[in-house]
């Protein structure tokens, strides 16, 4: 309990991420607390960490998890642009791009889930009724790549420019058309099937434990005052007041 910070501060509505971090009670003397990277460094050498994190905004510290195991650089950039429209930066704090949702998506599509290994894939793929769920054979990783190709193609057809170069409002229009299944994707696959995958992965990338590559510095959780992975809330759930706790990731369970 002792390390739990309890406050009811309403977050400052200014959009700067630094301001957000400062006002959400996550920093002490410029050290970002709670992030897996920050915690490890603090354990090793507190003074060195303090020095380094002073430069945090100017030169982000290398996070070895931020590297591509699936996307090409261009695919990554289109994905970054798309996720940012699903979950944009606003007064609450960073958007999906800064939260590393595209890194999360890259890692997920590279893994077993991207290849549908636990899905039923036997038998013929018939056209489904509305209530029977998708019956397409395409794997998630291939659906996603087909969607990225299609996003750029459609953007060029509509606005003669790549998706990532479009202004936000036009990007939203492109994505709206995809969500409504209005765009030709690949074969008989609906663009809404791709959109649903993009939407699901973005939300996961914003809110899954940071060990998966997204939810950078647990800021996805902080924004909604979600404390992450803590072991108990016996006192909090009985309290009439809202109690905001600093988020903890699964990393904090290591060594228990």
């Amino acid at each position, binding site marked *: 309990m002792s390390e739990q910070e309890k406050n009811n501060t309403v977050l400052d509505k200014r959009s700067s991420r630094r301001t957000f971090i400062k006002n959400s009670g996550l920093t002490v003397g410029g050290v970002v607390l709670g992030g897996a990277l920050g915690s490890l460094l603090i354990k090793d050498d507190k003074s060195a960490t303090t020095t380094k994190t002073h430069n945090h905004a100017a030169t982000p510290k290398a996070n070895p998890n931020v590297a591509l195991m699936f996307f090409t650089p261009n695919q990554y950039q289109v994905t970054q642009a798309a996720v940012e429209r*699903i979950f944009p930066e606003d007064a609450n704090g960073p958007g999906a791009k800064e939260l590393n949702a595209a890194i999360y998506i890259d890692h997920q599509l590279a893994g077993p889930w991207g290849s549908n290994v*636990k*899905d039923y894939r036997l038998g013929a793929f018939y056209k489904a009724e*509305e209530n029977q*769920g998708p019956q397409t054979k395409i794997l998630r990783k291939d659906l996603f790549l087909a969607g990225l190709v299609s996003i750029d193609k459609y953007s060029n057809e509509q606005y003669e420019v790549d998706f990532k170069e479009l202004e936000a409002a036009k990007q939203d229009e492109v994505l709206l058309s995809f969500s409504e299944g209005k765009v030709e994707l690949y074969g008989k696959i609906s663009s809404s099937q791709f959109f649903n995958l993009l*939407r699901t992965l973005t939300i996961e990338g914003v809110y899954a434990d940071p060990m998966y590559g997204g939810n950078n510095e647990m800021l996805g959780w902080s924004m909604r*005052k979600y404390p992450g992975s803590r072991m108990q*809330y016996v006192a*909090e759930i009985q309290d009439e007041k809202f109690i905001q*706790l600093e988020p903890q990731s699964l990393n904090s369970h290591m060594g228990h």
Partner: protein
Amino acid sequence: MVTKLPKVPVVVVGMGWAGGIVSAELTKAGISVVGLERGKDRTTADYTMGHDELRYQHRQELMQDLSKETITYRNTLSGKALPMRHYGTFIVGDGVGGAGSHWNGQTYRFLPYDFEIRTKTIERYGIEKIPAWMEGLEDWGITYDEMEPYYDTFEKMAGISGETVELWGKRTNPYPTPPLVKTPLMKEFEKAATSFGYKPFVIPAANLSEAYTNPDGISRGACQYCAYCENFGCEYGAKGDPAVTVIPVAKQTGKLDLRTHSNVVELTKSGGKANGVIYVDMLTGEKFEQPADVVVVASYVFNNSRLLLNSGIGTPYDPKTGKGTIGKNYCYQVTAGGSQLFFEDKEFNLYGGAGALGIEIAEYMGDNFDHAEVDFIHGAGIRSTQYGDRPIAVNRVPAGTPNWGAEFKEKSIKYANSNFPVKTQGASLPHKENYLDLDPEFKDEFGYPLLRMTYEYTDNDRALGKYMSKITRKFAEEIGADIIDTNEEQGPFNVNKDSNTHNTGGVIMGTDPEKSALNTYLQMWEAENVFVLGASAFPHNSCFNPTGTLGALSYRAAEGIQKYLKEGGLLVKA
């Protein structure tokens, strides 16, 4: 090649609650049991990194691998069933503990009305109250009072936390542990309920309210309200789970031969009895035949029906004639009629909670209110729950908000801690054309036909949902939410969207072998040494989570199996 193993007294298929209870009871009585479980063994150590929403809830860590086996689904008899290719609606457990590891822990008794539903409905309203399509509605062949000792045993074993409620059947004992705490959200519900003259109660929970030692000597700690129950295992062992209660007890006797990764694909039979089972080692692909005097089928609702149908045991149900029993009376759960409340200036600690933490009223359950003027029977619990809102799964926004983009982000964050639902949990009654059979086309990885589900909500469900929506609306208005969204209509069933996983029926109990597959010891009328356990035995689903009744029936079946091993023959005369 099939390796034939030496015969054993009892083989149990599936090591969830039903299989675990039977294994514990039989081994304590000195009877040797072989327990076959298709998944892995599990202890609380498996959950050290358990607070991982993505892995457990959205990647279904504790669930059956659908690449090997799934169900196929269609809405109506005339449709073509297609496979459920990934999880949506149902979560089907896998591994030691089964669904008893990943459940929420809401542990109800069914009402006295449920067990005699046909008789009591006709007595009060006349036969015309039961529509022709509901002709499968039957008494269970056992009364609440006869069930009471088995409920009591289950509750003591699992340490259920709760309070005695009026408008229910009589209890011989209070719950073994007091109810869970009342949170501010629950107090809002309580205040509204009391103002209407209802008597709210805290939902009975298998999440322990305090440390508890059960009659088997198993000690467990109290729930910490960490909010990771459904889809997750409990690292504290505070949630009643076969893996921390009955299975360790069975193991301690030295009489349980637990074989994990052992997937039963068929029962063998001769002369109206089962000889044993065929199973596949899922790690090596080796096939074994395990002969037994008694075969206990305790896998899950879906696989119980499928195993019997694939083995040619029992008469398949025919929805056109209404004859046959295996696959009959598949029922689900009705949850239409809920109201979602949003607040501008109230925040609740919604990140905390427990799978069975909630408050409810009994006034609209079963036949606790007069149905003379309404066009449905049975009812629903009206309830508010606090499971703990996990951020990937729960992003409640007022109706009309898009599900992505700037407005979605703003609203989902704004209301993340400023909302709660007043929900319904309604009974699901049998429809002649809602049933389970074998799919004519799709197969599992071994080439056995998949189970085909034909299911749609009924007129009873739609009328019930609509009626209950008025009650939840009334609650929401009394509580004084700033925005209230009420779901008045029960839409069509969608296998990837509906969010309830209470499946019942298919191998139902009763008194008439023409209408039921089992007697009230869950012994098959057509194969006396086969006992089929689980919610598959329910002739209908009540307005409750099924586990309490499933557990009670498992204790009764364990009693029946011991009697059968001594005396043989059918335990109940048809």
